[in-house]
């Protein structure tokens, strides 16, 4: 193992669920308000996963109050409490940027129904 990998291995999370672009996910992030800490959820469609290793990020897109919004999360950040996969999507490309130009019915993604571990 090289030195960079050995550094990263201390921070890499191992409990990340299997999810890919097209999936509907719910991301629980830790928010600090003064002294208190609470969880905030962000639910939407994963439109990309990029970078690799510890630096991997994923972007979630949702339409809230008629306004499209996207949030990019560092996958291994300790501020991400958990990621729940609500629904797997059947898609044919790795980056779903085409969703940005669409609204309503056109943004629907077929559900992928297969064994959990593939």
């Amino acid at each position, binding site marked *: 193992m*090289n*030195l*960079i990998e*050995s*550094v*990263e291995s*201390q*921070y890499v999370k191992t409990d990340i669920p299997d999810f890919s672009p097209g999936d509907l996910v719910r991301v629980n992030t*830790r928010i*600090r308000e003064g002294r208190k800490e609470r969880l905030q959820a962000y639910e939407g469609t994963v439109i990309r996963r990029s970078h690799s*290793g*510890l*630096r991997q990020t994923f972007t979630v897109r949702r339409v809230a109050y008629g306004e499209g919004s996207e949030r990019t999360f*560092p996958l*291994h*950040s*300790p*501020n991400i409490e958990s990621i729940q996969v609500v629904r797997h999507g059947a898609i044919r490309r790795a980056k779903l940027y085409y969703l940005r130009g669409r609204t309503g019915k056109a943004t629907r993604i077929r559900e992928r129904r297969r064994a959990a571990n593939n």
Partner: protein
Amino acid sequence: MSNAILGKKIGMTQVFDDSGAAIPVTVVEAGPCVIVQIKTDERDGYSAIQLGFGSRNENKVNRPEMGHFRKADVKPHRFLREVRIDNTEGLSVGSTLDASIFSPGDFVDVTGTSKGRGFTGVVKRWGFAGGNKTHGGEQDHRRPGSIGHSSWPSRVFKGKKMPGRHGAKRVTTQNLQVIQADAERSLLLIKGAVPGPPNGLLIVKKAVKQGK
């Protein structure tokens, strides 16, 4: 106590701090270094230690160098660098330095040889603005423009910024913070970027302008 160590740049990655913020870090393989020679005020007119770093095949070392290493009773090293040090007390020839001379939160200056850029123009080398890209910019997009005046002084001033060889120079980046120091793995994590390419030799020294 020594205030410097030699190391090798491995590359960059990121780590997370207690608040969950991602910190960009450079991974440095720091040490172990051996003190090959100690220079003292009485004998040499200044005080310094000479550090050896990296292994070297014994049959690749010439005789004068071999003698130098024999005198210190150490194995030949690939790199020898001298670091000025105020107080050489407590240091002995042949003793080893490792990453534990630094601890998280310390500020360091990192010296290396910057990446060589070859022959470059003035835009890259000196940050000139170049010419217009449009509006009839003609062919003057990245040219330096005028380099002086006419009848007086009828010459170009010395030191005029011109195209030429760029990079591959000794560069020091000051006041970088140590994020992690692990002597067991000879590892230093330094916040931010350090000069030079991966595998380049670095001198990591306690910051001259201590903190901010």
